[in-house]
């Protein structure tokens, strides 16, 4: 009996500990965000620092985003056609593909891919710089690592993410068109005209872009934070990379629900 009570108390204490830890971390990451924003002047003034990071987080993510977008579009086209033709509205497959990509799949999947491709690389890079004392060395050379290392990576991620999500959606719609119009034989005119009549720029496209921007901020922040905050050991870096991917995925999916419930309630 006493053992049971002790177990419950222990469990509760553990939950409390986790909660306090989580809140403390949330506060910490918020403070970190402000510090990065304050240190951002340099990454905007010396734009080549940010351009360099845009290469790593943007250009190097092009391939995975393009290919994944195409495949997701192909699958959406196939499944959408299969379902819609039962109700005699196969023409609406373009609408279905476009709306699901623009509103949800584009920003979300691009965000998840971005977190695992670019986010993990950012964490690894900053974590390694911390482990090998490069950040401290920079600080001792009177160069603020937040301004020189963290801020350019953060801003590059924020800029790259909406573009990657747009590319993902565009490739997906192209994939849907390829499978339904070219392969299956849905009417080309109906595919596009139904899509254009239904999809609204301000509502569907813009909200998708806003979503991807938010995901870009969140993933970039998590990636630079985990790298900057990791334990300076090989194990610490590998844990930080895992945390970047897992936390980003969870936050993207949760935030997507929140954003959707605000944006698409009609």
């Amino acid at each position, binding site marked *: 009996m006493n053992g049971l009570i002790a177990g419950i108390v222990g469990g509760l204490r553990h939950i409390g500990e986790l909660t306090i830890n989580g809140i403390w971390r949330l506060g910490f990451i918020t403070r970190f965000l402000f510090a990065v924003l304050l240190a951002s002047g340099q990454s905007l003034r010396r734009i080549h620092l940010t351009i360099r990071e845009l290469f790593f987080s943007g250009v190097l993510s092009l391939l995975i985003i393009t290919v994944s977008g195409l495949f997701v579009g192909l699958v959406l086209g196939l499944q959408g056609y299969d379902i819609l033709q039962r109700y005699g509205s196969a023409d609406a497959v373009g609408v279905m593909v476009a709306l699901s990509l623009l509103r949800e799949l584009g920003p979300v999947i691009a965000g998840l891919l971005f977190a695992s491709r670019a986010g993990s690389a950012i964490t690894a*890079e900053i974590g*390694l*710089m911390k482990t*090998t*004392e*490069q950040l*401290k*060395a*920079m*600080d*001792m*050379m*009177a*160069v*603020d690592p937040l301004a*020189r290392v963290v801020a350019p990576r953060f801003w590059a991620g924020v800029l790259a993410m909406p573009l990657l999500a747009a590319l993902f959606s565009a490739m997906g719609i192209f994939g849907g068109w390829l499978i339904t119009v070219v392969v299956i034989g849905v009417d080309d005119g109906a595919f596009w005209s139904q899509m254009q009549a239904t999809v609204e720029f301000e509502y569907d496209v813009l909200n998708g872009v806003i979503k991807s921007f938010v995901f870009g901020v969140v993933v970039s922040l998590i990636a630079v934070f985990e790298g900057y905050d990791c334990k300076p050991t090989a194990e610490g870096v590998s844990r930080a990379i895992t945390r970047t991917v897992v936390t980003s995925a969870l936050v993207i999916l949760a935030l997507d629900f929140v954003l959707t419930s605000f944006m698409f309630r009609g």
Partner: protein
Amino acid sequence: MANTDDRAPPLVSLRDVHFAYGERSVLSGIDLNVHRGQVVAIMGGSGCGKTTLLRLIGGQLKASAGVVEVDGQDVGKLGGSALYALRRRMGMLFQFGALFTDMSVFDNVAFPLREHTDLSPAVISDLVLMKLQAVGLRGAAGLRPGELSGGMARRVALARAVALDPMLVLYDEPFAGLDPISLAIVGQLIRRLNDALGASSIMVTHDVHESLEIVDYLYFVADGRIVARGTPDEIRASSDPFVHQFVNAEADGPVPFHYPAPPIDSLLDVRLP
């Protein structure tokens, strides 16, 4: 050896410095002076707080009590830009060099120049090659840090640390993990660069023999206190038991071989009759 004028105010001066990580006291009551032109070694076993001492001087940590002064400024009270202004006149060599892995050797040495000066690329190039020449690695300018041996990386880091002609150079374990030849090279470079720049140097190390060759003054730290000090000649002649143990690398002495523990007899399960 450099001239040391004891009447001039010291460049670095620590007065009754205490430091603790949370509850754990690391340094207690450190008094230490470094005069201009001197190379000073801070020696002690692993984990005795000597690296902490270096971080206090560099302003990476703040003392819990006491004053750390560099060039007349209280490092602990400096914040933000004032601290950075001071650090621009300091160089630091980290334990394993801490070269930027995403830049070439040339760019590593050029980094402080590009960050802190408006010099033209041609002038920077000349300066960088001069610094690399001084450490004997001008030919390695195009290599990446990953392609360097430990000793070469240390020398490149040294060139980077003195790129801005600092008044004070801090060395964190400059000899750790080097073969005897590289070790001698780095030791000679520390002395030569110090004298050529008219700078002062503080190095934290446990390599007593190399240090005795090149430094002007030594401090021995144990348990967060300075237990012995003196010029190399005084240290060699010292009869202090700690210094004796350290210099002669004896396993047991004032620094005990055993971590504090109850007598082993009481723990043995098999009792002898």
